[in-house]
């Protein structure tokens, strides 16, 4: 349950419920959900490619690092690949800790690493054509704070 890379949709609310039940004894649970946005107004769908042999390992490493660094009671990562319609949930991270500061920091750390260090690539298919989403300098900068 800790790490899932899947093409199928998932129910973020149900995942939060399951995670919270599993993280018994933690006082603080944080979730982040990323959703396909139609920024330009013409998005038909998004395609997410990944590197299967590397993804699992990269996510396991990121998760272990987050748990160790922030003393998390638990952490889950769920990330989809394949074709996603606008408004669909792309991914989710969940963290549990005794105190809120660690749960928040753990989730932000996971997100910063997922953005720039997990082998996923997003392509937007719009009315005007296809384009690979460019990495953002802010995302690389965000890693430096950890």
């Amino acid at each position: 349950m800790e790490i899932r890379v899947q093409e199928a949709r998932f129910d973020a609310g149900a995942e939060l419920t399951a995670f919270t039940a599993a993280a018994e004894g933690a006082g603080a649970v944080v979730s982040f959900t990323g959703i396909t946005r139609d920024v330009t107004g013409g998005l038909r769908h998004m395609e997410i490619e990944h590197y299967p042999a590397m993804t699992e390992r990269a996510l396991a490493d990121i998760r272990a690092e987050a748990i160790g660094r922030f003393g998390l009671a638990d952490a889950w990562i769920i990330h989809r690949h394949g074709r996603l319609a606008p408004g669909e949930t792309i991914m989710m991270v969940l963290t549990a800790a005794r105190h809120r500061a660690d749960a928040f920091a753990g989730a932000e750390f996971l997100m910063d690493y997922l953005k720039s260090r997990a082998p996923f690539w997003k392509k937007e298919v719009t009315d005007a054509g296809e384009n690979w989403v460019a990495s953002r300098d802010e995302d690389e900068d965000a890693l430096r704070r950890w």
Partner: protein
Amino acid sequence: MTLQVLYFAWVRERIGLGRETVETDAATVADLVEELKAREERYAAAFAQPGALRVALDQTLADFDAPLAGVREVAFFPPMTGG
């Protein structure tokens, strides 16, 4: 040495394939890139700006000056955009 070389995202699209087997004596990733660029225009286009690319050796991120000795799988791709 026989390497599995993988391409992802627009690198895959420019080169026109996702995976190939490469026989090479390249000592480093940078050497391998030079060999590939010399092959055909589509490789030269894909590797025109190596700074825009990332490389993983046996599924672990590496630098372009990393040695290839003992490596079985090399993957080239643009900066990741997960999350």
